[in-house]
């Protein structure tokens, strides 16, 4: 990969250890993928934030970078807990202290401690066509597909390296030729609830090959939350990182493979998921907010809870970003939810929180991404169900 003289000097260590290490990461990845050069980025979204995912080794690595500073707007992925209300979540103190050290390390590097999987709803909103280096697979799909910013699906260290250098190798989805659809999917059903969009994304991720770029045709929505749901489940089960759609202003590819998504595929996809039937007796936690809830989603949940109370034997946990929380609090939505026994947590991802060690066993969620990672990462039994059913299991 070609390096400018400034980049060469970074690599030699003239700008300190952190920048040098960051540049070594970018060069190794650039060479790996055959990138021609580095390009400037306008923002970063950094993964590798929860103590569950990076552990002591990740924390040690972060703390070794203390002479560095990020060059661009950088936000963080969710942590394993609400950074203020972790006691309320039942998080053990030794876990919490490690988690707080991780956030402090990122803060010293200049990243904003906005821990969320929806940076685009929380102060990190890239514009059309700009290059960014984002981790968090659901946000990567949203940025590439809905916002039309350009990012590969970065890992934790590579997103951090790009943030510290302010550049990323030019390959993959930074190149327009890799963003063109080769498969079209005609939607032949009126999708209503957000959870059905989650199923659509899951089916796309499971059906297509990893380097396919789908073109979704016939969606009857312009709703941010629904695009968020499609991308999250698509990326949880595959490495696909972009879709195009007629409603997003993309033009139909001229010749390509054609698939369709109808009611029978929707039902078949749901039926192939284990444990979607609910035995209300054994559910101990209902988690909504994967990806983090938008203001409107919180409002809808507050409306659904009107006249009901959360059951004593079930926890209803809602997850959102600090930014959205602040607005929801001002609008009275948070107090409406908490006054009937629900909890609104910030900063956290329940799939990364130590839920099974706290003692939870069976989680219900309306997100296929949470369903997937709750089983594989958090070690819980997970049940996938429409939002309204989730609320009705948790309350009466």
């Amino acid at each position, binding site marked *: 990969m070609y390096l400018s003289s400034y980049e060469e000097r970074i690599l030699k260590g003239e700008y300190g250890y952190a920048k040098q*290490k960051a540049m*070594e*990461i970018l060069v*190794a*990845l650039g*060479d*790996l993928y055959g990138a021609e050069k580095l390009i400037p980025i306008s923002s970063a979204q950094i*993964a*590798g934030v929860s103590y569950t*995912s*990076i*552990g*002591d*080794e*990740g924390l*040690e*690595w972060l703390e070794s970078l203390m002479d560095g500073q990020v060059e661009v707007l950088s936000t963080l992925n969710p942590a394993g807990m609400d950074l203020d209300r972790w006691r309320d979540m039942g998080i053990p103190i030794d876990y919490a202290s490690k988690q707080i050290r991780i956030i402090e390390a990122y803060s010293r590097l200049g990243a904003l401690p906005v821990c969320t999987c929806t940076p685009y709803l929380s102060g990190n909103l890239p514009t059309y066509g700009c290059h960014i280096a984002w981790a968090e697979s659901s946000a990567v799909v949203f940025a590439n597909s809905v916002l039309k910013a350009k990012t590969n699906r970065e*890992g*934790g*260290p*590579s997103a951090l390296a790009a943030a510290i250098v302010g550049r990323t190798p030019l390959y993959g989805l930074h190149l327009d030729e890799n963003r063109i659809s080769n498969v079209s999917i005609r939607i032949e059903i009126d999708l209503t609830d957000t959870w059905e969009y989650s199923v659509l994304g899951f089916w796309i991720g499971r059906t297509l090959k990893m380097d396919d770029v789908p073109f979704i045709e016939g969606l009857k929505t312009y709703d941010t939350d629904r695009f968020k749901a499609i991308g999250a489940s698509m990326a949880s089960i595959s490495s696909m990182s972009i879709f195009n759609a007629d409603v997003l202003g993309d033009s139909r590819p001229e010749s390509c493979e054609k698939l369709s998504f109808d009611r029978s595929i929707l039902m078949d996809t749901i039926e192939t998921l284990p444990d979607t039937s609910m035995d209300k007796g054994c559910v101990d936690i209902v988690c909504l907010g994967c990806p983090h809830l938008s203001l409107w989603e919180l409002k809808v949940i507050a409306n659904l809870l009107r006249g009901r109370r959360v059951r004593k034997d079930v926890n209803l946990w809602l997850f959102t970003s600090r930014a959205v929380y602040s607005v929801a609090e001002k609008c009275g939505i948070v107090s409406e939810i908490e006054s009937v026994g629900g909890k609104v947590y910030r900063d956290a991802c329940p799939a990364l929180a130590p839920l099974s060690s706290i003692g939870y066993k069976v989680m219900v969620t309306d997100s296929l991404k949470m369903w997937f990672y709750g089983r594989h990462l958090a070690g819980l039994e997970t049940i996938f169900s429409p939002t309204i059913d989730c609320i009705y299991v948790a309350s009466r």
Partner: protein
Amino acid sequence: MRIKCRRLVGGYAEGYSLVSPEPISFFGGVDPSTGLVIDRLNPIRGESISGRILVFPGGKGSTVGSYILYRLAKHGLAPKAMICLEADPVVAVGAVLAGIPLLDKPEYYIFKTGMYLRVYGDEGLVEIVS
């Protein structure tokens, strides 16, 4: 014999090789406190990667694997160098964090466990000494 490779992370190392026939997930596949391979599905399970020139088809699995390589290096348990058939980002980033030479795409993939190798990371060359 000298074999040309693609240079990914520079540096020099020499030592005895350990060849894994299977791709390695450092997260869950290698014990970070001992350097022993613990992946049940890998025939080299129980072998130590510490201080060896680790030769393997490539990485697989969680990106946390990069941090595992870093931790192994901090405790003096990392391989001296790594040679892959085709490296993946987890291994490439891990090699940078750990500061160990990494080459891939060797012209000839003829390595066997127990060979004495010299790895010239900066030049992208591996020498089979014996």
